[in-house]
């Protein structure tokens, strides 16, 4: 078993660094009275050691459900991961027992959520909550050792006056401080992968910038991989190495930040770029919205889910679902139309 694994790792290493996380054919559905909602519908992507991979998409695109599926945090029922593989550092997370996956959560893979207030326990001090993963996963013992480590964590996320802050309750913290505390908790066990789900959406723009800079610095210096889930293309451009664009439960385009922003190839990505007011375009330029509404995930159209809103759609688009195909080393798209010819 070990030798087989070593062989595949060596073979992959010649092409690209072996991924830390490998997601293949992931399908997550939610069963409701009115039928099945295909929240994640066949998603493939990798996260390599040390890189920040973004998953961007609008509400209902399945980006958060993808993240929650990785840690098997899907509430069941009604949700269920019905198909796919999630391989993390050589292990298939979907075949782990409940006990085993608990040892991965917060330890090897940490998650940072959007709303720090509802993710923190209001009746425990910040110190108590920071200590929990240390005691459970790292078996740190002794009050003094635990306190020392907690203080160190608060200093790393630059919470001022950490001695006093350790004994505070979450409601005594501001929004930005709570998110810093969440990050400290995420870092406590020195995870290899951090999943940040809209980590700054609830914060003001000046605080958002501080938090994102902090995350970038902490992941770079430790070589931690990160999945950054967001709807904000500005955030993605500044902080992601590679970008996955999701629409209606599928990845429709993937590439480096340069490729996605400078030469997008999927009509949906192009539409997103044109919908966005930009600071570097002449003021008063008319926006070009994507027409129509996002699809109902329980009644997905035949073929490409974007085809009803797509100005390039052909008959084939309305019949067959396109798979992700490679355009260049890092650039992939799931679309039948050759944009460069169609324009």
């Amino acid at each position, binding site marked *: 078993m070990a030798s087989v694994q070593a062989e595949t790792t060596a073979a992959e290493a010649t092409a690209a660094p072996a991924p830390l996380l490998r997601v293949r054919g992931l399908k997550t559905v939610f069963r409701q009275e009115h039928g099945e909602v295909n929240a994640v519908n066949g998603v493939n992507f990798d996260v390599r050691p040390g890189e920040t991979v973004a998953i961007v998409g609008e509400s209902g695109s399945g980006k958060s459900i993808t993240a929650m599926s990785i840690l098997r945090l899907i509430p069941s029922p009604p949700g269920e991961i019905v198909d796919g593989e999630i391989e993390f550092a050589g292990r298939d997370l979907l075949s782990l027992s409940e006990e085993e996956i608990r040892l991965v959560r917060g330890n090897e893979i940490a998650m940072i959520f959007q709303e720090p207030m509802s993710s923190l326990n209001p009746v425990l001090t910040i110190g108590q909550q920071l200590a929990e993963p240390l005691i459970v996963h790292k078996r740190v013992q002794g009050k003094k050792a635990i306190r020392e480590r907690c203080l160190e964590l608060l200093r790393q996320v630059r919470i001022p006056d950490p001695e006093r802050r350790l004994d505070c309750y979450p409601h005594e913290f501001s929004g930005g401080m709570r998110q810093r505390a969440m990050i400290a908790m995420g870092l406590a066990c020195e995870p290899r992968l951090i999943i940040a789900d809209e980590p700054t959406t609830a914060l*003001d*723009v*000046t605080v*958002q910038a501080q938090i994102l800079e902090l995350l970038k610095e902490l992941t770079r210096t430790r070589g931690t991989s990160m999945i950054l889930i967001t709807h904000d293309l500005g955030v993605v451009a500044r902080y992601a190495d590679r970008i996955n664009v999701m629409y209606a439960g599928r990845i429709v385009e993937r590439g480096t930040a340069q490729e996605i922003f400078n030469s997008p190839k999927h009509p949906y990505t192009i539409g997103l770029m044109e919908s966005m*007011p930009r*600071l570097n375009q002449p003021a008063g330029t008319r*926006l070009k*919205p*994507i*027409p129509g509404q996002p699809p109902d995930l329980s009644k997905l159209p035949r073929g490409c889910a974007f085809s009803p809103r797509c100005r390039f759609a052909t008959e084939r688009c309305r019949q067959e679902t396109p798979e992700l195909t490679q355009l260049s080393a890092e650039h992939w798209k799931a679309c039948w139309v050759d944009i460069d010819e169609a324009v």
Partner: protein
Amino acid sequence: MKQSDVLLQVTDLKVHFPLGGGLLSRRPRGTVKAVDGVSFHVNRGETLGLVGESGCGKSTTGLAVLRLVEPTSGKVVLNGQDITAMNRRELRAVRRQMQMVYQDPFGALNPRMRVLDIIGEPLVVHKLTRSKAEYRERVYELLNLVGLNPNMAERYPHEFSGGQRQRIGIARALAANPELIVCDESVSALDVSIQAQVINLLEDLQKQLNLTYLFIAHDLAVVRHICDRIVVMYLGRIVEIAPREELYENPRHPYTQALLSAIPVPDPDPAAQRPLDPALQGEVPSPLDPPAGCPFHPRCRFARPECSQRAPVTVDLGGGHSVACHLYDPAVAGSAAAV
């Protein structure tokens, strides 16, 4: 500017909220100065942006302009009529001229009412239609105006997506033919592809109906897109007012500069990013206990002794650009203006 071109004039507006002393004590524990002496005007047909971070008082200013919260002091003059001095009946008449579009398209519409009655409510309140047929006719016209199909009139809000609900909210705001519309984060909750649809709709309606917008938002890219002039607020006060281009190209107040540097630019080229202001640490202080002097001084890299002692006066820089900062006050020794 001719006086008649000013639709809305706000002068030294203050909104202070007493803080209750809790269950057993009636004595207030203090005051939150949500809006603390704000003056600006909105010209007819323009879009004035009101921006700032949470707690800066931008939404309270919007509500006070419509007298949906009572101003503590100051004056709000719409079309030459002082709204702050009106009684309820007079106010009802003048409210026709000013309407609001809210942020949350899910919370702002009554789930038990049909779209027909949601949009038609202002017509009933202000007695604007004489017959059932005329009422229905007007609602259909409004639905068309915001790009919805009149056959949707019999449906309920839950049957609509976020973008469609925001269109319904806009149709309701337009029902009484207002002159001024206060848009409080009206596009913030929408996904970017839908947000662009609603922004374009607001722009088209403005041209078509000669509307004036007070556009309250925190997204500075959207504000730059839609607004002619921009007011920047911080902790209940105005720190800078300038025409759009001037504000984004030549921000003067250290807070405005920091705010603009923090916007993530959707371009991976590092050269396209504004360098992040390294001095911008910390967060907006609690409005319960604002810093003395200039409220921004604890976070300001240019702060000097007088900044913590005296509130800065507003300095007119010309061309419609004004700033409230000691750096630009010729009366303060060592200010940029004095050098």
